[in-house]
């Protein structure tokens, strides 16, 4: 089973050179730490920034520089600042090449649920609905099962959905999967030490297994 950092690390291998990337809160934020050296990529923060730098040192903390998770950050040499309308123009207009975000559930046709749990206080969808409705290339970081052990890779989402038919790839603690254009989770890689049988038993939605499924390499 992968740790959160390992999920992030495996996702980072999907990053391509010259991509503009939006990283969601949580595991996706950790992806930034594993982007291979030599790749020129730019991170977008939907509150109005391209070029997210590392957290500041104590003396460089600036309340006017935060990311979408409201964490204090720094600029990079190639940073650009802009308004929220411009930021979502970039997202909606398809200028952001890759979106990585967390999910509570994904269905076999690529629907994603990650904003609302009935019965719990709803905090809002933030920018997630815009991101999933607009991005061509969406990778989800999530746990394969809930704490009670039920699968989160489903035939159909049970929670209110955030967007339809949009997820392209998923990295869970157990596996790396791709969404089949006509539905189904294509098992591409197993987490080290995790068997195909285990993944099968923990995936409620249609799982497509073709040939030998390799273990992930880091």
């Amino acid at each position, binding site marked *: 089973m992968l740790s959160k950092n390992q999920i992030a690390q495996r996702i980072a291998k999907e990053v391509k050179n010259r991509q503009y990337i939006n990283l969601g809160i949580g595991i996706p934020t950790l992806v930034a730490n594993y982007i291979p050296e030599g790749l020129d990529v730019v991170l977008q923060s939907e509150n109005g920034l391209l070029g997210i730098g590392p*957290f500041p040192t104590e003396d460089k903390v600036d309340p006017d520089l*935060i990311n979408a998770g409201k964490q204090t950050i720094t600029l990079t040499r190639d940073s650009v600042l802009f308004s929220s309308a411009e930021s979502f123009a970039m997202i909606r207009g398809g200028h952001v090449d890759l979106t990585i975000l967390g999910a509570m559930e994904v269905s076999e046709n690529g629907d994603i649920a990650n904003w609302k749990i009935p019965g719990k206080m709803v905090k809002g969808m933030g920018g997630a609905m815009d991101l999933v409705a607009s991005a061509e290339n969406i990778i989800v970081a999530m746990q394969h099962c809930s704490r009670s052990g039920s699968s989160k890779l489903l035939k159909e989402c049970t929670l209110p959905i955030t967007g339809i038919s949009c997820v392209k790839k998923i990295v869970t603690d157990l596996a790396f999967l791709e969404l089949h254009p006509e539905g189904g989770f294509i098992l591409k890689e197993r987490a080290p030490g995790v068997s195909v049988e285990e993944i099968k038993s923990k995936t409620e939605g249609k799982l497509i297994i073709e040939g030998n499924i390799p273990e992930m390499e880091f």
Partner: protein
Amino acid sequence: MIDKRVKNAEEAVQDITSGSTLLMGGFGLSGIPENCIAALEKTDIKDLTVVSNNAGVDDFGIGLLLQKKKVKKMISSYVGENAEFERQLLSGELEVDLIPQGTLAERVRAAGAGIPAFFTPAGVGTEVAEGKETREIEGKTYLLESWLRGDFSCVKAWKGDYAGNLIFKGTARNFNPMMAAAGKICIAEVEELVPVGELDPNQIHTPGIYVQRIFQGVNYEKRIEQRTITQTS
């Protein structure tokens, strides 16, 4: 030069009445109109509809207006951690309209730009789409969303001049430019108010035509929600 100066926040907000729709700049606690909020807190105004990406925290930002029960309805994309907010929502004292962040930004931008409605992909197939017109355009489905206007808007800029021209700093720009343009009366508070001619005309973020009142704010607290630090070794 059309002089937009008013003395302070109290003078700027004095004709805001109960029941008004108020557009507020800011993302989290960054770039929020602290002085306007403090001035509103002291008034008797209530039943406000507040449009703001977030709702502040319990003891700062819009949270202060919630504490004083001045808000009837919040229109936001994310309301975050706010115990009083949650209490009022669960007790039915407060209405909340949650909107995708990009749709919120564009609805407010549309209001300032005289676009009454537009199609956007965000929320298609979700509960956000309920009751809304959808249309397939070039093979993709979109929702029709309408403009979101305000009686007043309160924004916070870094620098501004007497004519209401504004420059924002860092990610404190966020929703401020759109809110400014979408309010019938826009009140701008700035950290530094300068005479006309001091700002580069090529580098204004919000042209003064959108701003009706401007004043230099005082005692900015600029509270930080998540103080994340890189340790120097």
